[in-house]
């Protein structure tokens, strides 16, 4: 296991907790292929009734934003409060919003 080139590739694991919820990222597993990744994800992350559905995605297929670009990407949103839908009054009888 010490030679990284011989290790199985890494897969990111997403679990849907129950019907209607989104899949959430919960961690990662090593596996030789997608089928093994689903089995490893099942055995690693759904042992305690955490989920009803699994996604696995090769970690190498994920493109991340560059932390160095964080200022340009995210900070411009800081002073744009009008983008939050907080200016609407919600009638009392509307639940779940």
């Amino acid at each position, binding site marked *: 296991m010490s030679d990284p080139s011989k290790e*199985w590739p890494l897969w990111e694991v997403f679990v849907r907790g129950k019907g209607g919820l989104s899949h959430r990222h919960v961690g990662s597993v*090593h*596996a030789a292929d997608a*089928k*093994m990744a689903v*089995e*490893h994800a099942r*055995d*690693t992350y759904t*042992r305690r009734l955490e989920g009803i559905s699994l996604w696995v995605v090769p970690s190498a297929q994920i493109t991340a934003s560059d932390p160095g670009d964080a200022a340009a990407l995210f900070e411009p949103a800081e002073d744009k409060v009008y983008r939050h839908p907080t200016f609407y009054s919600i009638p009392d009888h509307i639940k779940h919003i």
Partner: protein
Amino acid sequence: MDKLATYALRLGDDSLVAGQRLSEWCGHAPALEVDLSLANVALDQIGQATHFLALAGELEAKGRDADALAFRRDVMDFTNCLLVEQPNGDFAQTIARQLLFSHYQELLFTELAASKHARLAAIAAKAVKETSYHATLASDWVTRLGDGTEESRSRMIAGLDWMWRFVDELFVIDEIDAAAIAAGAGVDKSALRPAWDMRIDAVLADATLERPAPRRPVLGGRTGRHSEHLGHLLSQMQFLQRAYPGATW
């Protein structure tokens, strides 16, 4: 012990010894994820054993619970099939044992879930789902190892060859089975063999492996004639209750 108690005891001993043997991999598997997979299967099987042994103790009605049956019997009193006590060997040998046993258990529990004995039926109905996963997991690994590298292939062949002589015992029925079948409680295991053969042949075909050559079957587990391996397994599993009888925590 009456015959139905012995019938439940055998089911419990199969699951207990299979789970205990598999749990020896904990901390030693080829990868962390595989370690978890094997430990999950082992825990499932020990869970099945708890239910079957508790039932056996109740049917016996001599005050022995599942713990007493698991930890305070000697080797000749164990009624598990010889297959499950076989040593883990390398990973392929362990997977070979799991393949042969889990497909047998899945077929058995599927039938047992329709038992007229409500408790047996309930335990089997719960166990069959997890056992189905065990069979799938083992089948996948046999395919990977058999159709893998030269080394994994030769190890998979050797593992199947080691375990093969213990297959016939799984499907042997005796007067204990006959009584349970007559009462509508038990399963005719001998009738499961064709379905088992079809399943194993399909996995072997996927794995590009030949079925091992027929071997002279080794029998005796059901009546307490075990291989030398079971005593060592029990000495570890039962150490605490042997050293400190009745200890609880």
